[in-house]
């Protein structure tokens, strides 16, 4: 076939496709005209999907609960969401679809700092109120007044993970002297380490080791050995699930027993990891957001929510207990819903003003927002794994294996110090 013909064919094909796309702009709008539409992207695939999927489930449970009580402003609520693949590059396109094609009334963010980052400028440009889910310090640069964050980090997000850890350390008698800091070359661990370094200075500890490793390291033994050689009193680790597991296993194999071990190890609280690591977790003092301990279970609505979540999660191959993010994701819905009902409208500015000025009652307790939309008072928990025996899941369902050591208002147990005593 001559070049000319093939060129014409190509141009025709392209024209047809373009025409279809333009025309179908109206075709694939998400259905419904009467309900209140809340739109968002969510990490259903990719690195953060292990948390994204439970977060979505929690929001869906919230939507069902709200609709059972008659909806918001007398209208049913509908959630419209797309998979952001844990890839920030999809965010502009997704939210344009949500706002310009599906015409959603309200937006919330997806899960995670990196997915909120490209969304904030979009919210600012379009003057939308945005509730973010577990983003670390996204608003520090922009200081957008209509952004609110659901994560108990508080006004100083970077030190929020480590503050409980180092406060507990400083209280011990005799006071430990030296600290080893180690973490993965990735977003959250790097932020946690920046905060940890500040706190080390504040509490007057001495740093004897401060290095990072690439996230896909296979063998953590050389790293742990190097740390052991420093004889540090305290070892603070900031890691993502695979390296949390790797570091902990290597620590046991090498016999690393500082006076305090743990810190910002993401993943240890995931049910699948808790059950497979079992007693190896004993003694680790780690950050957490939620634990099935009496102070946390006392908040209104949490028990019912967890019951519903656990029933549905069984079927859907996600974390079966939901003791990490889901309660907070449900709280996102609660804050938004309560604000809409209170101002009796969908006006973005009115909603934002109301959220800024109100203290909300949610399944994770009272929430009041402060500077840059963060919680006025930080409440990241410090827990310690204690008395774990074997690999059964039931011991994690109720209280006892993960008592809360810090902050005081949510405290439910005492620290076993030094670390080695908890291993017996």
């Amino acid at each position: 076939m001559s070049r000319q013909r093939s060129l014409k064919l190509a141009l025709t094909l392209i024209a047809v496709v373009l025409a279809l796309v333009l025309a179908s702009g109206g075709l694939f709008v998400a259905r419904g005209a009467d309900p209140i539409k809340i739109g968002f992207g969510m990490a259903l695939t990719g690195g953060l999907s292990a948390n994204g999927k439970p977060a979505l489930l929690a929001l869906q449970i919230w939507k069902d609960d709200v609709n059972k009580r008659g909806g918001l402003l007398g209208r049913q609520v509908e959630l419209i969401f797309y998979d952001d693949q844990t890839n920030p590059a999809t965010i502009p396109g997704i939210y344009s679809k949500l706002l310009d094609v599906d015409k959603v009334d309200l937006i919330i963010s997806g899960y995670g700092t990196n997915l909120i980052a490209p969304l904030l400028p979009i919210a600012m440009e379009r003057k939308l109120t945005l509730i973010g889910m577990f983003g670390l310090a996204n608003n520090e640069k922009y200081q957008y007044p209509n952004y609110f964050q659901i994560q108990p980090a508080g006004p100083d997000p970077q030190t929020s993970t480590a503050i409980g850890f180092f406060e507990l350390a400083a209280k011990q008698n005799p006071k430990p002297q030296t600290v080893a800091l180690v973490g993965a070359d990735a977003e959250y661990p790097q932020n946690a380490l920046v905060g940890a370094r500040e706190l080390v200075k504040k509490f007057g500890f001495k740093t004897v080791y401060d290095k990072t490793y690439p996230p896909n390291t296979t063998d953590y033994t050389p790293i742990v050995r190097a740390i052991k050689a420093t004889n540090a009193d305290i070892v603070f680790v900031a890691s993502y699930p695979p390296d949390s597991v790797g570091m902990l296993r290597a620590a046991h194999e090498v016999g690393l027993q500082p006076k305090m071990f743990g810190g910002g190890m993401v993943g240890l609280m995931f049910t699948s990891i808790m059950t497979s690591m079992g007693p190896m977790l004993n003694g680790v003092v780690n950050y957490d957001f939620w634990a099935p301990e009496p102070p946390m279970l006392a908040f209104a609505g949490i028990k019912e929510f967890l019951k519903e979540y656990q029933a549905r999660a069984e079927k859907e191959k996600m974390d079966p207990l939901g003791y990490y993010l889901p309660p907070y994701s449900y709280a996102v819905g609660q804050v938004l819903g309560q604000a809409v009902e209170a101002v009796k409208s969908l006006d973005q500015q009115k909603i934002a003003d109301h959220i800024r000025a109100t203290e909300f009652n949610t399944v994770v307790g009272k929430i009041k927002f402060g500077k840059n939309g963060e919680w006025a008072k930080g409440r990241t928990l410090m827990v310690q794994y204690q008395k774990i025996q074997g690999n059964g899941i039931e011991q994690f369902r109720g209280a006892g294996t993960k008592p809360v050591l810090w902050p005081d208002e949510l405290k439910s147990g005492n620290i076993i110090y030094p670390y080695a005593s908890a291993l017996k």
Partner: protein
Amino acid sequence: MKTGRTLLVALAVIVAGILLAKLRVNPYFYFAGYVILQYIVIATAWNILGGYAGYVNFGTPAFFAMGAYTAVFLIRSVHAPLPVLIVAGGLVAALLGLGIGYLTLRLRGTFFSIATLALAVVLQTAIINWEYVGGSRGLSVIRPSGPPFGNYVVFLFTVMGGLAVVSVLVARFIERSWIGRGLAALRDNEEAAECMGVPTLKLKLFATTVSGFFLGVAGAPFPYYVTFVEPNSAFALDYAVNALAMPMIGGTTSWVGPVIGAVLLGTASQLATVTISSEMNLFIVGVVLVAFVVLAPEGILGLVRKLRSR
């Protein structure tokens, strides 16, 4: 089609792009359109080396990300304007192509391909350790104010449209020139080409450099499109797969193939992102790729040619 007429068509396409921008159709169109145009540049660039010369580059993300990170660096340090970002991004990626080509093109093609795989990992590690451009935490970038057409994404859409036209013109020019003939000769049988006096090493280096240049150019506007650049998404595997799949599906022997592939596959992926699950989307891309490679190695162009000549 003669060169004169081609240039006219190219101009017409650019004008159409500008008109579309002025028309302000549904904003979503510009977001999706940007991504598809970006893939036209990527697929065309990849094909200059892969289709014309027969050397498979698996490290497309490395070149794309170099373009993006060069832009980030220049934005953060000197607030350089967009045209500078594009040219600089392209040049850095071109140098990268030249370097990796020089190291490995004297060996067989498979070694080059493996080296490109390794390249992506080494570069990603380097970027993760470079705090100035955000390191592993990423960097937020603020779009400049007062863009043409009033909206930055619409502006980027026209810019990318222009870049797509330029890259296709360059590819077409290479294809028709003695360079293209030399590349085709070495693709079919490198030893024979050498024996006939074709300067194979120089041609290969040329192709790698030009290919790298346009991959970097495709990446340079990325920071302003997403406003947040972090290593995992800049080096995403999607770029590697699509850069391969689009030319293979469209047809690798001519500049038309990558364009067809990019439009078809790009549109399909955009649709899939907002309809079915994206895992299925990737699965389908993989299956279609393998199916084409096995059953229709000449791509759609080849299929059409066969149909026409019956």
